[in-house]
Structure formats: structure tokens, C-alpha cells
């Protein structure tokens, strides 16, 4: 296809502003999808994505319209996947900015506009949901003017009713620049996502920036210099369709017998072995997991199943890591690395849902660098593995620069929250009259606890958070141990700032008192730092637990109640003689504000 007949674009929107519906309508309008029975929101494939209303994996589809090839790339939408998003945007020349006519411009809209501008994308504003009685397109236009976008360029649409889809398609053709024509140069194809297929191996989603690629070509991955022979190239309609060649400006896929997704990473450049490009495309990073937590089967017999499940998930997700780990309290499990909390939740949910596993999950941790007094350096991402405090000279932890976009009225609360989480104020800038960007330097460990949720709740959902790893810095950190019935439960240990240790220790033992059920005997719960007890509560022995009334009609019901109780006990982890429910292991990351 001639590059002047190609347009590559993405859709950016605040959650619920109608991104997926608009994509569906364009597919229908252009006849890309004729099957009316298609599931709503074709592009979000996983159940999980559909339920949460988020996109986790990028998707692509080629739309044919009036002799043009329009390539839509759907991007993931969460801070954990910021890098993946940036690679998707790098594959486009333009973006549809979808704004809800009733809700107007929202915080996330701003963040998205910045991203799009950073990648030099042509922005086409679409004011969606004009069919709503509460729609106020005029107000949205004023807001657009405020943020420096020409409101006259905006297209009024209703994706739900299919209004003005034709205008949007026309704008894509007319306003978005055609891709650069580098057909005569060596191949440079940008990988913006990958998918693993058990028959075909890794499927690389690519945008060809320069040159061309066809079946039989010997390709080279520029970051690791590995080479493969191309089995198949093609495009998405949205199913995979074979094609002879992918050339400069086009979007599609390359299958080349890569067996390990880790050898084919998002952001890498594919070139030809015999005619390689001089330089890779800019922006490639080898994504490193930043958040770690232990995953243990509740039933130790499920260890092998968990291992297989993790292996399968990793086939599709190079950013997720795992290695075996043993806990005194929890037995055999795995220490897993994730991009962020959402990534962690998504993986955990898939394990429980798709593999029917019952898991105990330890609180997330970051990777610490420890310099011991004897000069030895350690990297530790499991608090339980921390060396004795007396041997430690210095501890360093990862810091990030956090950027928070939010309406001005919430600045006070957000700043307070940042300070409570050891944030150091760096900068504050007004985006417009009432929108602000706050910049803080913060320990990553603070961000991966409840920070994001609290930020959301304190700003009624308006704040968005982006963060970027800054580097390691020394901190005054200590290991906080929890003793249940006098025994240290290694899986409950956390690393905290020395100044917070009393407060965290107290909050934690009280929280554990709420979640650990009463036993036949009194169970003391203690928090200790360096062997010194700093907080203590007792869970009193059970005093009364009896179904008082039991006659002819009650017997079955009472038995079922008992069976239910027993089932509940099974889901707990037996640590010594104490039964600890799964949620206890996650409570360590909750900050009890009332404590």
C-alpha cells in the first residue's frame, strides 16, 4: 500500500468516555466487522479487561475505507503500563481524543493529551455522547479552548447511536498525516505488543517505520541481536489475515518462530539480518519489574499447578517474572515481579480465575539494596530475607518522580498525602486556570501500598498519577516483624521507615486482630523491630460459639452452617497452631488511618 493511502491512529480517552464503543462503531460502519453478533467492545479481549473497563494488552485492527488503510491501535490505559502506552503512541501519527459531552474534560484527558503531544501526534477532538440529555458540547468546546485545542476542529458524535462516524473517518483521512515513506531504506519495525500462541510462538505486533518485510526474510532483533526466519506476516481485521509483505507505514504482525516472549520485547526494533538498519528506533527500554510479592498456594498440593500457571502467563508477558521461594509460614511458593500494583492484581486474578487457584499473597515490596558492614552488597525484594539489623550498614531504596495531575481544589489534600508518604515536594505547575501538576520525589515503596487508592479517594477520582524511576537513595529503613502467638511469621514482615515503625506496627497488629479469628486459646500479636517489641494486642480466646436452638427442622441447616465454617477454615493458612486467613497477608499494606 502506498503510504499516502495509510493512516495510523489511536484513541485516547478518560475511562468511560466511550473509547471502545467508538472503535466498535467504526468497525461496523466500514464493514470491517459484519457479524452483528460480535461481542460488545471487540477490542478488549480478556474478561478481566471487559469487567474492569480497562485495556491491558494493546490491540490493533486495520480498517479499509474509501481506498485507505486506517490502522487503529488500542492502547492500555493505566500508569503501570505507561511504557507500553508510549510504544503504541510511537506507532501512530494521530489520535482521536474522545471527550464525554456530559462529563467534559477530565484529569486523565489532560494526561492523555500530554502524552499525545509528546509523541507529536495530530489530535482530532471528538465530543462523544451528544445523545445524552445532559450533554453540553458548548461547555466542552470552551474547555478545549482553555487547553489550547481549536474547538472548531471538534467533531460532535454519538458512538452509541452511530452519529457522525463518517465525519470522524473523513477527519482521520484528511487531518492525520500520512506515515513517512521509507520504503527504500533498511527495515525498521517497531514492536508495540506481543502475544504468545502455542502453535505459532510469539506474534509480534509491529508498525513498520521503514523498509519492508516478507515471509522467508531473516530478521534481527536489535536489542539482543537474535535472528529468526519470518514464517508469516499479516494484518488484523481484527482476526489475523496473511499478507505477502508489510511495508513502510503499515501495521500488522510478524510470526517468526520465536518461542520465548522475553526475546521479543515491546519497544524493540526488528530489522533484516542481511541489510540491517544502522540504528534502532528510539525509546526502547527493557522493562523491569518494580513490585514484588510472594504467591503461595493455600493448599501446598497446588504448588505444581501454580508453577505451570505462572509459566503459561509468562509466555504472554515478558514484564512479569517469578522464581521459587520458601517461607517458614507459607511453605513453597514464588516471588513474583510486576510492573506495578494493577499488573500484580491482574496476574493474581487471572491465576485465581483461569486456573482456579486459591492463593495467599504477601504484601508487595520493592527491591532494596543493602550494604552490609562487611562491605557485602545485597539486592533483596523479600522483607523476610533481610539480614539482621546489626549487620546492616546502609539500606537504599528506589525513589520515583511522581507526577500528579489534578484539579486545584484538591491540591491541599494531595500534598498532605504525599508528605505522609515520605514525599519530597519538587514542583507545582498550573496547566490552566484550575488544573495543576504536582511533582514529588517519593519512595516507590510508599506508592505501591495504598497511595494510589487514597489519592483517588481524596480527589474524588480526579487525580491521575504517573511515576518514573529516579534511582536508589539511602533511607533509614528497618524491618518490622510480626509475631503471632510468639512466633515470627516471616510472610508478614515489612520494611518501613524507622520514624513510622511505631505507628505502622500498632496499626498492623490492630488490623490483624480484626482479621484473625478467635481461637480456643488467647493469641498474642506483636510487632517487633530488631528484636524489640514495639506493639502488642491479644486476640482473646473464643468465648461463645454455639447454635443455641436445634430441633427437627434445623438439623440440615445447622450441618450446612458447620460445613461452611469448616470450608472457611480450610482457606486459612495454619501457622503453628494459629489459623491465619489469606487476607491477613495483604492487610500489612493497608494503612489504618484511624490507628
Amino acid at each position, binding site marked *: 500500500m502506498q503510504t499516502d493511502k495509510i493512516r495510523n491512529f489511536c484513541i485516547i480517552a478518560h475511562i468511560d468516555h466511550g473509547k471502545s464503543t467508538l472503535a466498535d462503531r467504526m468497525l461496523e460502519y466500514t464493514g470491517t466487522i459484519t457479524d452483528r453478533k460480535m461481542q460488545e467492545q471487540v477490542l478488549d479481549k480478556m474478561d478481566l479487561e471487559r469487567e474492569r473497563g480497562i485495556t491491558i494488552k494493546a490491540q490493533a485492527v486495520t480498517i479499509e475505507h474509501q481506498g485507505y488503510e486506517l490502522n487503529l491501535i488500542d492502547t492500555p490505559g493505566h500508569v503501570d503500563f505507561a511504557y507500553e502506552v508510549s510504544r503504541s503512541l510511537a506507532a501512530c501519527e494521530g489520535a482521536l481524543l474522545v471527550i464525554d459531552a456530559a462529563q467534559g474534560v477530565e484529569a486523565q484527558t489532560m494526561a492523555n493529551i500530554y502524552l499525545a503531544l509528546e509523541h507529536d501526534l495530530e489530535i482530532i477532538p471528538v465530543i462523544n455522547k451528544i445523545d445524552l440529555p445532559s450533554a453540553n458540547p458548548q461547555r466542552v468546546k470552551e474547555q478545549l479552548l482553555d487547553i489550547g485545542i481549536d474547538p472548531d476542529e471538534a467533531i460532535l458524535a454519538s458512538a452509541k447511536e452511530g452519529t457522525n462516524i463518517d465525519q470522524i473517518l473523513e477527519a482521520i483521512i484528511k487531518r492525520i498525516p500520512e506515515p513517512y515513506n521509507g520504503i527504500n531504506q533498511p527495515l525498521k519495525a517497531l514492536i508495540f505488543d506481543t502475544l504468545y500462541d502455542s502453535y505459532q510462538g510469539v506474534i509480534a505486533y509491529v508498525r513498520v517505520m521503514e523498509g519492508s518485510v516478507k515471509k522467508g526474510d531473516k530478521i534481527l532483533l536489535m536489542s539482543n541481536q537474535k535472528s529468526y526466519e519470518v514464517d508469516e506476516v499479516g494484518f488484523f481485521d481484527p482476526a489475523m489475515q496473511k499478507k505477502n509483505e508489510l511495508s513502510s507505514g503499515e501495521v500488522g504482525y510478524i510470526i517468526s518462530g520465536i518461542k520465548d516472549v522475553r526475546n521479543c520485547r515491546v519497544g524493540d526494533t526488528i530489522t533484516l539480518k542481511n541489510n540491517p538498519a544502522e540504528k534502532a528506533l528510539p525509546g526502547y527500554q527493557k522493562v523491569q519489574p518494580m513490585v514484588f510479592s510472594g504467591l503461595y498456594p493455600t493448599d501446598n498440593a497446588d504448588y505444581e499447578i501454580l508453577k505451570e500457571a505462572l509459566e503459561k502467563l509468562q509466555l504472554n508477558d515478558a514484564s512479569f517474572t517469578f522464581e521459587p521461594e520458601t517461607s517458614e509460614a507459607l511453605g513453597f511458593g514464588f516471588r513474583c515481579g510486576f510492573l506495578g500494583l494493577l499488573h500484580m492484581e491482574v496476574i493474581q486474578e487471572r491465576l485465581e480465575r483461569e486456573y482456579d487457584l486459591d492463593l495467599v499473597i504477601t504484601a508487595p515490596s520493592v527491591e532494596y539494596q543493602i550494604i552490609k558492614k562487611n562491605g557485602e552488597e545485597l539486592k533483596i525484594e523479600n522483607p523476610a530475607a533481610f539480614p539482621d539489623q546489626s549487620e546492616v550498614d546502609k539500606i537504599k531504596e528506589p525513589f520515583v518522580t511522581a507526577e500528579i495531575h489534578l484539579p486545584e481544589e484538591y491540591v491541599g489534600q494531595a500534598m498532605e498525602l504525599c508528605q505522609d508518604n515520605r514525599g519530597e515536594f519538587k514542583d507545582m505547575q498550573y496547566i490552566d486556570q484550575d488544573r495543576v501538576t504536582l511533582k514529588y520525589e517519593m519512595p516507590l515503596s510508599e506508592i505501591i501500598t495504598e497511595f494510589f487508592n487514597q489519592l483517588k479517594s481524596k480527589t474524588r477520582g480526579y487525580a491521575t498519577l504517573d511515576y518514573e524511576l529516579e534511582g536508589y537513595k539511602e533511607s533509614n529503613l528497618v524491618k518490622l516483624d510480626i509475631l503471632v502467638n510468639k512466633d515470627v511469621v516471616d510472610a508478614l514482615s515489612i520494611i518501613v521507615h524507622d520514624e513510622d515503625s511505631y505507628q505502622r506496627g500498632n496499626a498492623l497488629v490492630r488490623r490483624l486482630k480484626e482479621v484473625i479469628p478467635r481461637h480456643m486459646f488467647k493469641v498474642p500479636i506483636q510487632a517487633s523491630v530488631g528484636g524489640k517489641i514495639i506493639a502488642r494486642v491479644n486476640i482473646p480466646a473464643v468465648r461463645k*460459639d454455639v*447454635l443455641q*436452638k436445634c430441633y427437627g*427442622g434445623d*438439623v440440615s441447616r445447622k450441618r450446612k452452617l*458447620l460445613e461452611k465454617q469448616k470450608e472457611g477454615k480450610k482457606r486459612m493458612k495454619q501457622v503453628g497452631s494459629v489459623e491465619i486467613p489469606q487476607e491477613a497477608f495483604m492487610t500489612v499494606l493497608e494503612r489504618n488511618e484511624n490507628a
Partner: protein
Amino acid sequence: MPDLKFKNANALYIHLPFCSSKCPYCDFYSVKYTKQRVDLYWAALFMELKELTQKVNNDLLQTIYLGGGTPSLVEPFFIGELIKKIKSSFRVIPAAEITMEINPASITEEKITALKRAGINRLSVGIQSFNDQHLNFLGRRSRGENNKRILTLVDQYFDSYSADLIFALPEQSLEEFESDLAEMLKFNPPHISLYNLEIHENTPFYQRYNQGELKLPTEELDAEMYELALEKLKTAGYQHYEISNFARRGYRARHNYIYWLYQPYLALGPGAAAFDGNCRSQNLADLNLYLSYYNPKNLTFAEFMDNEGSKNSELERRTMKNSKTKATKIRELNCLSRKEKMAEYSFLALRTAKGLFYHKFYRQFKVDFKPLYKEEIAELKEYNLIKEGNERIYLTDRGKEVANKVFLKFLLD
């Protein structure tokens, strides 16, 4: 539809699902009382009774229990007819215990004597409390003074009766409960049932509880009240013969004892549950369904009795056909696995003061209890929740308080 086959049933329960108002804590099935409903119901009940006679074999009833609902709303005439009918349909021992529940709000001296004449020989009186505030909270229509008056009357006419008391109410103090208990003991009733307030699903209290409106007493206070009752009742000469039941010598509830001994029992009426030793069946808790099934022609009781005279009446043919083709589902049948039966047997037996006898368990299941639960027995003994006697185990007072923890140990995977 498969059905129960009763052999050697000793007990019959009859549910009378009528109340003038529904107490917000109660999850027993009931509908609003009207004379007409009872009239139609009686015809249906007689039909079910007739059907039941064909399912029993070698029955010898030792107890009959009329529960509710509020049986005392029903006119004693109907009660008398029913007891006559039962006695002519089943073999009933001469000294059978025939109990009926009564509500102090819907009973009079006249009714009490009429019930006695009708054949009732034991009353279970729903006192619940003598404290007007608590009675009001529980949705009871009787008040403290009336409760005392009724107890006096019951005591005057009935040798055997039971009185219910509820404790562990929201905001109830230990002293308030103590005075309820003291008031009760003034009457020295032959039998007392004692229940802590339980919050059941599908009751108004459940909703209020979930919305945080009802604050139940702490486990500690609940336990203190129970311990107080144990002490006071023991001093007053009562035997604590089951977790919730206390009796003077010779006045145990024989009917309920049959449940705890895991023996078969028959049942009649919507919502009522029967057990044949292997399966349990429960009539669906739906009076309209019950009436349309057993009294499709809407006959009054008098009309039914007229009809009854003519052999193979139309009604009977229809009803019998109805129940044979089983076009309508009238009850749930649930047959128990061996493990389920073993669990039920264990926790029912352990509810009684005598506890679980190893040889009886063996007779029932052909497996030795003691080796089967060796570790559990040792652990429970260590926590002083059970004691081992001569070839049996039984709950300690502490064990009675946390009986669920004990029962859990005897559920098999």
C-alpha cells in the same frame, strides 16, 4: 418423586403456620392468621395426614408436637379434631407427650382448659422475657405482667409445660437478664428453654443487623449470661440436659429428645421437616401451594368431613392422583451421605448432657468412633471442651459455650 419410607417412627411434628404478626427475629414459616385460612388448612392437613399413613410402617407414636407459627390462635375445636384424627390414624401410646406451643398474647384461661380437654398434655409457652422494653423490641405483643398471669394459669392447669426465655439482646445488661431469670424461677416451671438471640437470614433483624443498627452483645457478655443461667438453674434444681434446655427431674422434652437421638420423625404442614433415618424431606414453605395441592376444591373443614364420609370421594381421588403423578412439587427430599449422617449424629448426640455413646455410634454406623477421631478427642480434652466418661464423650460447660468448635471436629471431609 422418591419419598420417605418411615419405619418405627416415634414422633410427629405438625406445623401450624399462622401468626397475628411476625416477630422480626423469627424465621419460621408463617402467614397472617385468619379463621378462613385455618378452616381450609385443616381440610388440607387431614389430607396430608391420610397420605402419610400410607408411608409409615410399624409406627408407634410417643410424642406429638404442634408448633408454629402461633398454634394458640387456632380454635381448640380444631386442635381436638386433629388429635382425635391422629389417634385414629396412627398407633399412639397411651402416655404420649402431646405438646402445643402457645403465645401469652393469644391465650385465655378458657382456651387453656379447652386445650387440655382437646388432648394436649404439655404446653410450651413463648415467654421470651418479662421486660416490657425487650418484649416490645422482639415484636412480642404480650407484656411482662401478662406473661406472669399466663404462666400462673398454665401452672394451675398443666402438670408439664415449658417456658422459653431469650437472652443476649442488643443493649441488654447482665442485670436485666438476671432479673428475667429470677422472675422465671419464681414460677418454678418444670421445663425451661433458653436461647440467645440469633440473627437469621431473611428476617427484619438480619437487615437491621447488616445495616449496623443492631449491636449484639459481645461474646464475653453472651457467655457471662449463659454461665449465670447455668449456675442459677442448677441451684434451683434443674438438670441441664441439652445445650439450650433445662428440666426438673422427669420433665424433659421427650419430643425434642427424639431429634437429638437421631431417630425418625414424621411431619405435617408447610415448612415442616421429616426424617426417616436416611433422608430428610421438607414440605415447601408455601401455604397457598399446600392448599392447592391438598385441598384443591377449597373445602371448608366441615365440607371436608362430610365428604370424608363417602368412600373414595372425588376429593380423595383427585388428591391421591395429584400426589401420585407428582405434577406439583410439594416437598424437597434430601438423602444424606454416610458422612453427613455421621456428622449429624455426632453433633446432635453431643448437644445432650449424656453425650455421644461409642456403642450407639457403632450400632448406627458400624465403625468405632474413638479410633476414628483419636486426635480430635485428645485435642478437645486438652482444651477442656469435652470429657470422656464410661464409653462416651460429653461436653463440659465450657464446651457447651463453644459447641460449634467441638462439632466442627466431627465433620468428615
